[in-house]
């Protein structure tokens, strides 16, 4: 049974390794979330701050 049962960490690693392949997801946002997970920094506050900075960046970039 070993091989068929994934631990929580394996499930998370698996998901974030494939996050860029999820259709219709903004690549930049997905990359940032993946990076935060890999660095062990995917928390409420960090993600909220990242969303704000990505939003500002995009508004200022093209406006």
């Amino acid at each position, binding site marked *: 049974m070993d091989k068929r049962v994934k631990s929580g960490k394996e499930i998370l690693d698996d998901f974030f390794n494939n996050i860029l392949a999820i259709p219709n997801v903004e690549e930049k946002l997905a990359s940032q979330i993946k990076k935060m997970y890999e660095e062990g920094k995917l928390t*409420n506050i960090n993600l909220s701050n990242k969303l704000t900075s990505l939003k500002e960046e995009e508004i200022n970039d093209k406006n």
Partner: protein
Amino acid sequence: MIKIKSLCIKGFRGVKKELSLELNFKSALLFGDNGSGKSSITDAIEWLYKDSVRHLSSDEIDRKGGLTALRNIFIADIEKSSVEISFTDGSLDSQKSISLKKSNPEVENSNNSDAFVEYIESSKNENLILRYRDLTDFVLSTKKEKLDSLSKVIGFADVSNIRGVLKKAVNEVKSSLKSKNYDNEISQREGQIMTSLNERVVSEEQYVNKINEIIKPLGLEKDVTKLEDIDNILSLFKKSDDSVVIEQRAYYSDVISKINDLQNRINNLLDLYEKYYQSFQKIVQDVETLKKIALNKLWTEGLNVLKGSIIEKDECPLCFQKKDREELIKEIELRLKTLESIKKEKSQLDETKKSVEDALDEIKNVIVGVQTNKYFSSKGNQDIRDFVKSITEYISSISQELGVDILKEQRIKTRDKIIFDMAKLNETSVFCQKRNEVLLSQIKGSKILEIQDKITLSRQAYHDIKRLKKEKEVLEKQKSSLEIIYNAFVQKQKEELEAFINVFSKEIDEYYQYMHPGEKMENIEIKITEKEDELTGITLEFQFFDKSVSPPQKYLSESHLNSLGIALFLTSVKAFNKENHFFILDDIISSFDLNHRKRLSDLLMEKFLDYQIFVMTHERNWFDYMKNLVRGKVDWIINVVNWNESKGAHLNETLVDLKRIIEQRLIDNDKTGLGNIIRIYLEGLLKEISEEIEVYVKYRSNEINEDRMSNELLSELKSKTNKQPCKDIFGPIIDKMISSVFIGNKDSHDSSFDPSIGECRAFWQDVLELEKLFRHDVCNTIISTKYYDKVEKKIRCKCGNFSYDWKN
């Protein structure tokens, strides 16, 4: 994966001297009467891995302290209690000991390497030991406890945390889109453009064309082609006193937009405040528990101190009052557990409070935009200043409510009591509109000013629309991406959990059915319970007389519940044990009847062949059945745990051990008890030979069977070999032994028999000669009917190179 090579226990629990198991990675079947100390082996392994022995924590035996209760009570204070273990991976070999230093127990570990610490840490969550008392722990626990228990082992808590983070981000973006009400703001500014230009503008091209149309009377050299050109045109207008009118009109228009914006923001603020109020009211019901959150850090630290064995005495580390250490640990764990739910609610309250504060900050920012304009302090704008004052006071009153200390005041205003007078918004808006109309009348007739006014007001509104549209677009893209990611995550979690549970359920069912075939309990399944998209628990369901039912304790007998517990444990071993390839079953079959005991044995032999299993039992029938199953298997050792005053719990010596002892004593000319040891060796040897060549003795019950004496066995062996063609080979030595003074009745085991060292040496030579006739010295196996050659009519050893003519 790790298996145990050897285990040596000294001065620990029931073991006074030494209990050594030379396993060489083999499984062990150990029999011991109640009180023989066989569970000392389980206790030793549990302590080695978990730093404690669970069943001792609440036992009366432990009243005198955790670690001291692990030491054998008969050993001297200067002696160490120790558990020495060696593994498949030699770098993990370790000796863990307890010494008394000034009456205080101290733990030492010989292996402090990172690899060992890491191995022990990852082994802590593995299922290594099953005792009778723990059999139904999981089956009888609550749904939430089951979920927590499985989540902890498979690390699902981390998955749930990350899911929470993603969900919160989705909600935050959604709430941001809702509170800003972009459509309303955009439409309000489109209205302003309509008022200024008398035309609805839907594109940048249309806007630029309209501006060109407006500025045509000015006869400028260049047309406007892009938005930046409009700003250049505005700078061409000479600054004059009349331009002030246009600036003021722009200010009033901006205030009107901001008031419109505020209307949405205040409504959103009230909704958030309502949520905060509800959370506040819920927690305030249990404010006494909430107060204890302040003690959370203190209790957690206290627990660390107690668990870290910094204090081994039976006293509270804070007040130094006498208190059983293990009980204190349990008590603090319970207190911390009761805090968990209120901590969660408090954290939700803090999050809602943060949302209200954020909404207040946004309102403040809008107001700052109104206040920082130079026309705010103009003489005629008292209405705007009054409005700003009232809304500032409003913000302050809500901030005051947010500042209420739940532990002290326990009451905040309801939503009804903090309603803002929306009429003030309308009044101020109307004031600004009127001021605008008056100013408009002042510039009427001046073509240039009229053009400047139209361009200024429309340009500002158009700029706002572009910004709002962009902001909305970015937020919607974030929302869409986050929703897709969150949904994919939920799907992944569900799929993996279901895959795991399906496999897990199937395996539990398989093991249970193996032990209880044909009974009316089928299709055991683990089911997940969910509430509002969150996992809340796990239940066990099954078909009972073709009807789906739950929970098991409502329908099953004690022994069936125990079987379910065993099935769950064995499934968990296969599912979760990633480091270790061994497990211990300590006296688990007491409530089983003979048939189910046999089925469990068969299950272990069939499904767990590659595992190193420690089976301990005080049930003679089961031991005998298991012994027959594993006899002759090279990967099993069988032994008996006995207890006596001088050694405490100890294992019966094997023939190899006895041979080593006898030969050492002969070298040392030490005849103390030697005659008896040689006789015990001979009895063991004769039992082994009799079993292999099928020497039958008269039937006796199991207990008496174990006491067969050498004289009886030698007589039957003689009778068996006398019928063989090779009888002359065996006859002389068997006769010689039968006539020896060493062979007599049971009384000869008494100490009154005191042979000389020479007699011992001579008799030992006879025993070795007898053994040599039956055991092949190369493959070390005894000739056996299992290897009987029917063609050549020969009995052989396992390798086949040692044989006699034989009639079977």
